């Protein structure tokens, strides 16, 4: 049995676009980096994503949005996290997202937005650092 703390990350595609090649590439890269990747597939609502993230006790949620609905979907997931008292779960994502929108989303609480051309190593490094910085004050018993 291992006592090493694994990084767990949930990957989802919110909304209606069905282009899942990108998120599958990320899922494979995370798996090969030693993470436990929970892949939930297409057409997820923000409520489904956050509920799954809570049950799976993930460190982070990664979403891929190629439909142009990123200014709606990212904030909706952030709101849902807040409503469920789970804002300590990091939200990051990627997609075809203009620079201005990326800045705005990161200002509103998205931990990181990756745009086309970003190497998978960058996402892996980002997640490792971000999880290492997470602090918890919880007590078990």
């Amino acid at each position, binding site marked *: *049995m*291992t*006592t*090493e*703390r*694994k990084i*767990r990350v949930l990957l989802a595609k919110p909304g209606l676009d069905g282009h899942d090649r990108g998120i599958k590439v990320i*899922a*494979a890269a*995370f*798996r*090969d*980096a*030693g*993470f*436990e*990747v*929970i*892949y*939930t*597939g297409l*057409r*997820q609502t923000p*409520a*489904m994503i956050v*509920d*799954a993230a*809570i*049950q*799976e*006790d993930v460190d982070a949620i990664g979403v891929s949005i190629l439909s142009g609905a990123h200014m709606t979907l990212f904030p909706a997931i952030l709101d849902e996290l807040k409503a*469920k*008292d*789970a804002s300590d779960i990091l939200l990051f994502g990627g997609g075809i997202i203009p620079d201005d929108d990326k800045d705005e989303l990161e200002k509103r609480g998205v931990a990181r937005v990756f745009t086309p051309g970003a190497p998978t190593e960058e996402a892996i490094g980002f997640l490792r650092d971000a999880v290492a910085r997470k602090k918890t*004050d*919880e*007590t*078990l*018993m």
Partner: protein
Amino acid sequence: MTSLLTRFQSGDRRALARIISHIEDGSPRTPALMGQLYPGGGKALRIGITGPPGAGKSTLVNGLAKLLRDAGNRIGIIAVDPTSPFTGGALLGDRVRMNEFEPDGTVFFRSMATRGARGGLATATGDVAVALSSFGFDITLIETVGVGQVELDVVDACDVVVVVLVPESGDSVQTMKAGLMEIGDVFCVNKSDRPGAERIVADLKLTLDTRKRVDDAWRPPIVSTSAQTNTGLDKLYAAIFSYLDFARESGWFETHRREQAKKTVVTLLKQRFEREFVERLRSAGEFDSAVAAILEGKTDPYRVGDELYERFTTGRESVPQSRV
């Protein structure tokens, strides 16, 4: 700050999820934690679903969970997928088939990676099932990794095991082989709309006609399903519960649980023995010199084992004799 356990006991799902992670990570406080969870940890029925990769286990679990929930049960689901032996990473993809549930609290789904275990489940799966039961779920569905013939840990973690096969699962000689084909309390031929479904059902029948089971009087039913189109799931559901009725009436249910508890204790003892005795000896200098002596032909592994064992058993106080 309120402790996780207190939040768990007041029904906080986030605390349940965090506690499952503690159990998975095997933190030093896990034994004490399990001590708190065991009361009530055996209440839930545990239904195991196993079979080869791609047989449709996740889709069946999804369908069964729906039927069980509609019957008024709260359902915990544990779905296990493999950890890479090379990178330690895992792709846990069983949720893809489980997306129809509204987040209403009646279903709790947890993906687990095997993390080095080789019996089709993770080492911590049994303890996670205890946590789900203790939290108040009535039924736990446990889905194994896609198995071959010998990953049979599900038997020791469940009250009833469903073996899922597909029409392509093989001929009558395959169904006669030991291992997977012996552990089904219920057999399910999924994707039964495909050619060959009738043949494998016939082969299975022949196998089951000639097989002696430990719980003797039970003849495992064979149910044909097509999980994707929701065909036959009601029959599968009925077959599972008719087995459970049989097991309860015959006393086999309790016997099985008693055997499981014994095995759990023995497993914990073995782990501790290995940790405290074998690991300590291995790190001692004499271990390496003994190995060198084996390679030089001066002694053999059996003699070295005997000598080390002697030293261990005489180096301690003798076990108190029980008073008769």
